[in-house]
């Protein structure tokens, strides 16, 4: 009989292996962070965007020169399918850095729930500093209890970019394009496609990822409503008359073949596959040598004046993470990195808009020297952020699924689809 020794040997090997696995697991678990007054060296993560690395490098070099006992070490956010997944994993592993200068507002409620973020309001003068810098727009970044678990940092207010050469070739006025109302926009789109200058008038990504609605529905809904968020006071807002108007506008573009339903592999605007695009100020430097472009605010049903038009912010903020040992230093660095001087550097080096009140009057020389950014600087004062609610990503996925079904692929009634999504989202927001 050999069964018993065999089993015993297997158990012995399993136990030994399990011990090693558990030991390795124990080694990998990290500890908590330090207190709000602790000081010393810190690590920060930056986006892998070339211009943001340039800004980050000059920022930490300036800090390090003045603070030999509190040095900053910087690195790019480790590669992953998205920054949010990498940050979420780092929080769980306990090895998140002190500051991440690329924290998406949509992920903040989840990071907060994970216990990964520090409440910036808990620092002395923290709330005051944020509100003095960002003004009324700061309110969008508070959680339900009025706390700030993110520092509003920079926005990329989206606008309609259009290809002037294509407009001219289609016999349209390229300097004063007729794109203010839905009717004007649709008429222009029909002319562009019918003339054959581009296969698509505009081509937002028709895919199902939760964030894609930030670049089709959201900017137009913000403009149509004069600044409403997708969810307000715990309830979905988008299934109202304004939401239906925006959804029907996009549905018309898809239904008439003015916007394609297939994913384009590449940059449709740069490649001439679309005559228009919805982009932020980052596009100025990207397209300056590739496309003869112009920019206008997103359309509304009645043609809201540019100076009153809202849009989606596409903001990225800064999170201070609970794994940080020297949170006192991290808070000081955060204030240094969002100072008037460093915000000016951010504007200069990246062309992205610091989330700072009265941006155009604080940096008049920059906008005078860079008129291409002036529209975006002005637009930055009227931006709408993703709602800071529980299950934020699930909320956006529910909306995207409904939008994809009824608007992009034309299945079912649009109003019913929006109502169903609103009911689902209300339940998600209520489920803390």
């Amino acid at each position, binding site marked *: 009989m050999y069964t018993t*020794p*065999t089993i*015993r*040997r297997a158990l*012995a*090997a*399993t136990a*030994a*292996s*399990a011990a*090693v*696995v558990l030991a*390795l697991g124990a080694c990998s*678990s*990290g*500890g*908590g962070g330090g207190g709000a007054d602790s000081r010393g060296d810190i690590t920060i993560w930056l986006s892998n965007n070339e211009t943001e690395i340039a800004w980050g490098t000059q920022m930490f070099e300036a800090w390090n020169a003045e603070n030999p006992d509190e040095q900053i070490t910087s690195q790019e956010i480790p590669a992953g399918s998205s920054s*949010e*997944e990498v940050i*979420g994993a780092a*929080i*769980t*592993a*306990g090895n*998140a850095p002190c500051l991440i200068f690329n924290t998406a507002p949509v992920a903040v409620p*989840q990071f907060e*729930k*994970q*216990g*990964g973020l520090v409440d910036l309001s808990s620092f002395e003068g923290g709330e005051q500093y944020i509100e003095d810098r960002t003004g009324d727009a700061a309110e969008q970044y508070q959680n339900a209890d009025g706390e700030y678990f993110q520092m509003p940092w920079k926005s990329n207010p989206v606008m309609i970019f259009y290809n002037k050469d294509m407009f001219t070739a289609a016999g349209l006025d390229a300097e004063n394009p007729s794109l203010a109302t839905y009717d004007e926009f649709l008429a222009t789109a029909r002319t562009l496609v019918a003339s054959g200058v581009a296969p698509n008038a505009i081509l937002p*990504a*028709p*895919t*199902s*990822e*939760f964030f894609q609605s930030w670049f089709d529905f959201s900017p137009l809904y913000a403009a149509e409503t004069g600044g409403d968020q997708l969810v307000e006071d715990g309830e979905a807002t988008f299934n109202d008359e304004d939401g239906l108007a925006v959804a029907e506008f996009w549905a018309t573009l898809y239904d008439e073949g003015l916007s*394609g*339903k*297939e*994913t384009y*592999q590449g940059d449709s605007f740069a490649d001439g596959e679309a005559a228009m695009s919805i982009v932020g100020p980052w596009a100025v430097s990207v397209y300056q040598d590739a496309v003869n472009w112009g920019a206008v605010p997103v359309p509304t049903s009645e043609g809201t004046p540019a100076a009153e038009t809202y849009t989606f912010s596409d903001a990225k903020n800064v999170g201070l993470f*609970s*794994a940080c040992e020297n949170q006192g230093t991290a808070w000081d660095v955060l204030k240094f990195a969002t100072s008037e001087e460093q915000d000016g550097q951010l504007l200069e080096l990246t062309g992205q808009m610091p989330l700072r009140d009265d941006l155009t009057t604080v940096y008049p020389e920059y906008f005078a020297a860079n008129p291409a950014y002036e529209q975006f600087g002005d637009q930055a004062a009227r931006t709408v952020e993703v709602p800071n609610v529980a*299950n934020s*990503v*699930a909320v956006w*996925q529910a909306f995207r*699924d409904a939008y*994809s*079904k009824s608007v*992009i*692929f034309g*299945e079912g009634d649009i109003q019913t689809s929006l109502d169903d999504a609103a009911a689902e989202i209300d339940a998600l927001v209520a489920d803390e």
Partner: protein
Amino acid sequence: MSLVTKAPPAAGSAPAGARGGHQKGDRRRRALGKNPIGLLLSAPYLIFVLAVFAWPLVFAVWMSFHEYFFAAPGAQVDRPFVGFDNFREVLGDPDVIRSFGNVGIFLIINVPLTVVLSLVLASALNKAVRFRTFLRVGYFVPYITASVAVVGVWLFLFSGAGLVNQILGPLAPEPSWLINSQWAMPTIALFVTWKQLGFFILLYLAALQNVSQELYEAAATDGAGKVQSFFSVTIPGVRPATVLVLLLSTVTGANLFTEPYLLTGGGGPNGASTSPVLLMYQRGIEQGSPDVAAAIGVLLVIGVLIIAFIQRQVAGGDES
């Protein structure tokens, strides 16, 4: 071969200390076996299996019965036992039900196509004299090429203005393949079949080397043609490989993720190509509900085990 023999110690002659040593040695031998070095050599793989497969599976089952989310070390988090709540939520979610239906369609197309094509092509390759190496490499290249790279080629082939539609002309489906609710999943199934074929052809080629040439000669003597030999000799001869191919293609098919994620833009159109694993990624990683994702995973494992059992019973023959 060498034989090492050891004379037994004379009864009653061993000192007490030596007897104690023998007892320790016996205990050690009982625990570790005659060849402890074997345990040492197998330990790395055992650790790998425990850490990468067994432990996550056990943990996933545990998660699926608790309210669970990933939290920072030291965070005060309540993770109560919730019984079957996560399973109730999953089974009441039409998106989840649809994803299982989608992967069912995928398996119905992919698995039989994989078995038939790989067996036929392996048999042909086994007989081929000219270009044998070239053909073998040709079939294997898609398998070792990253999905991300070949997805780009298929997007070019199957887009509205792509090569396939240009060849088909008026016969091309409208809307095109990857944005057509009826055709999206079959197109993905075709893609995966093509991509994985090289690996399964290799399995069959290896199995074909074990089919005795004498059987073919005997069949020929009895008047069997090539087709009859294929059905009467080849197919029964590679039955163990067929069971393996069935199991592997079912398991890899049930884990479908990359193709709907990339080829149809996140499970489109309108969820027609969403797979359970894609939903697990959305719910568990993107939306921060790993408990719900774990419940989907547990159901998927159970489903795959049931299918695998049926396949083994039906196709395994004496091997089962």
